[in-house]
């Protein structure tokens, strides 16, 4: 059981625990943001680089620092390891740089984006970014693609976190989903834009940290902060059947997996539960869902988010290709 110290707080963790997991055990105040890591998806993480931290002491056995920042989501704790996150000005600066890169080609058209209010990129840029952009070139745009009847992909908003690729790999039987091209023009695709037809494909929507993969049955029905999340369950033969229902008045507008404190699905749900069961009668209601840090109606959080200083007005252009 290695003991690791993050920003001066020490914790003992099981062998094989990553720095990010250890930080989450200690608490939010030392936890780096994670845009691509997803606990339940194997080999996720390492891509976005927002979770970088400084290892100022590798271990008791080897007290040297690691010269470069490491991705905390993919680096295991060692006995006696010392890590600096928010106590390292270097890391705060470096992370600002990463956020700037993530936003460089991002439309930031939150006012017309269905994810607004529960978008991890909004939170990230608000909490870890700078309040101006230095990117002055045209941003890349893609056409929207329908992935079957329920899911829409809008690559323009994708941050290439690879989470949906891992879902396709690990949760569904046939992988019909991957990355095309390389570098700045990489895109998520089903290659032949045929329908993703699989019982668990809807989980891509939940794992997507931004508004790139959205629920077509919910799109633009309502802003999320006008809906009420309610925990509910049903007997499902395909999945755990434990969900959050999002109500507006008496109508269930959408169904999602339950999210934990870190915005991750507690358990994945099947497409039947997600897309087909939209009557209150389908469900046993448990009561109001608790609101996670990264969700919706942390309302005044959201209000701060759209402060004009954050987005230059001329960045917010509607898209021609809609």
């Amino acid at each position, binding site marked *: 059981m290695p003991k690791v110290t993050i920003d001066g707080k020490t914790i003992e963790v099981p062998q094989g625990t990553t720095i990010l997991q250890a930080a989450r055990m200690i608490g939010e105040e030392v936890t780096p943001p994670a845009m691509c890591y997803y606990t339940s998806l194997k080999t996720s*993480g*390492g*891509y*976005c*680089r*927002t979770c*970088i931290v400084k290892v100022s002491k590798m271990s008791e056995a080897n007290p040297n620092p690691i*010269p*470069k*920042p490491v*991705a905390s989501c*993919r680096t295991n704790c060692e006995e006696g390891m010392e890590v600096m996150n928010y106590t390292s000005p270097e890391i705060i600066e*470096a992370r600002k*740089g*990463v956020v*700037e*890169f*993530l936003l*460089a*080609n991002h439309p930031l058209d939150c006012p017309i984006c269905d994810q607004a209010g529960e978008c991890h990129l909004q939170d990230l840029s608000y909490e870890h970014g700078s309040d101006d952009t*230095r*990117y002055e*070139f045209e941003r890349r745009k893609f056409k929207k693609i329908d992935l079957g009847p329920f899911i829409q992909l809008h690559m323009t908003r994708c*941050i*290439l976190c*690879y989470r949906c690729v891992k879902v396709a790999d690990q949760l569904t039987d046939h992988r019909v989903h*991957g*990355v095309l*091209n*390389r*570098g*700045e*023009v*990489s895109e998520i695709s089903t290659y032949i834009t045929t329908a993703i037809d699989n019982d668990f494909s809807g989980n891509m929507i939940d794992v997507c940290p931004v508004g790139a993969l959205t629920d077509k049955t919910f799109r633009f029905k309502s802003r999320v902060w006008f809906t009420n999340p309610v925990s509910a369950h049903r007997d499902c033969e395909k999945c755990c059947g434990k969900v959050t229902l999002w109500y507006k008045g008496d109508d269930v507008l959408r169904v999602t997996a339950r999210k934990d404190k870190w915005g991750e699905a507690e358990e994945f749900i099947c497409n039947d539960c997600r897309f087909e069961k939209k009557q209150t009668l389908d469900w046993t209601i448990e009561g109001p869902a608790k609101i996670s840090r990264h969700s919706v109606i942390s309302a005044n959080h959201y209000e701060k988010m759209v402060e004009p200083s954050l987005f230059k007005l001329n960045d917010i252009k509607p898209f021609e290709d809609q």
Partner: protein
Amino acid sequence: MSKKLLTEHFGVQGIDQLPVYKQHGGYSALEKAFKKTPDEIVQEVIASGLRGRGGAGFPTGKKWSFIDKKSGKPRYLVCNADESEPGTFKDRYLMEVNPHLLIEGMIISSFALGANLSFIYIRGELLYVYHILEKAIAEAYEAGYLGKNILGTGYDLELYCHTGGGAYICGEETALIESLEGKRGNPRIKPPFPAISGLYNNPTVVNNVESIATVVPIINMGGEEYAKIGIGNSKGTKLISACGHIKKPGIYEIELGLPVEEFIYSDSYCGGIRGGRKLKAVVAGGSSVPILPAELILKTEKGEPRLMSYESLAEGGFASGTMLGSGGFIVMDETTSIVKNLFNFTRFYHHESCGQCSPCREGTAWMEKILHRILHGHGTLKDVDLLWTLQKNIDGKTICPLGDAAAWPVASAIRHFRAEFEDFVEHPEKYQDVKHYFNQIEDKQLA
């Protein structure tokens, strides 16, 4: 002239054919090796002090000693023949002229590592070299150097040559492994390192063509004897591919420790600068390593002569030094525009980024766009500062070293030639020829 260990027989007619190769002592190292145990061979290579010739300069024997022999999993040797770094063209030449040297090295190295299945992963554009290798491999099978029970020793080895699709990133060892497995060539996140979990999740060693070929002379002469060549921790000879504004571009086998000045100006090597012009700058080890101005490449900051060795080229760190890298030696005379050259490099890294991690994916593209704007005469002084911070934000924050490789040329060009960048953005009209060149390529490249 210094010792020729790799290129000794390059002039021999038909050396690419097995009988001729054998007449010149070919496959004698293999027979010698089979008289040793695998561990003894590893020891010879450790004793030789050979450092990886693919760019990073990691000691080859040490790398071999890391391979997991305990788990009992199959082990693989993979030869990295993806050579695609701008300025580097030594491996191609070696394989083209003397394919059996590489194959003999592959057999000895595989034997040392206990690998029964090995691969040469060759860059897709080198299809004609692939055919040369295939022919040589067939000859080696025919002669009993490959296959089952090689030379009656009971050792089996299957050797395959596999072509890549022509992506620079597939030269990064874990991307290469992914590609060899038939997947998209994305670098893996390390650890685990290939020595523990590489190809098909089994222990794997990836070595450069030249590193593997060098095992042949090491076995022939003995590791200790080999270690007498060279200087300091830079042992042996190294192939340098020299290009740019020199009188005699080409491949040179040098003894490590040769003074850079002698290499550039001696008639035995580059023969001096073309047209009697003045030397302006050198990129000493392939496009990724920092560019140095003439005064710093010939002499170190301390005023000592700079030598062609891992240590001497790195003397002064990145502030005033560079790296031996892969041995791609690019010489620029006084007529060269550093800004234009940097655009060219940056365009390359943008094009070759695999796009997995955000700093490299977005940063390489962004830097290219800024340089594009500067070349078009629309740059500002702020752009130079922006380039500087962008490279800083990429450096050290990516999954694989391609991000660093994209950042270093930008950092070093601005560090040593800032005045030229400033002059360019303030007086773009002085650089019209650059713009003309640029207009020609832009339609094709920047759609």
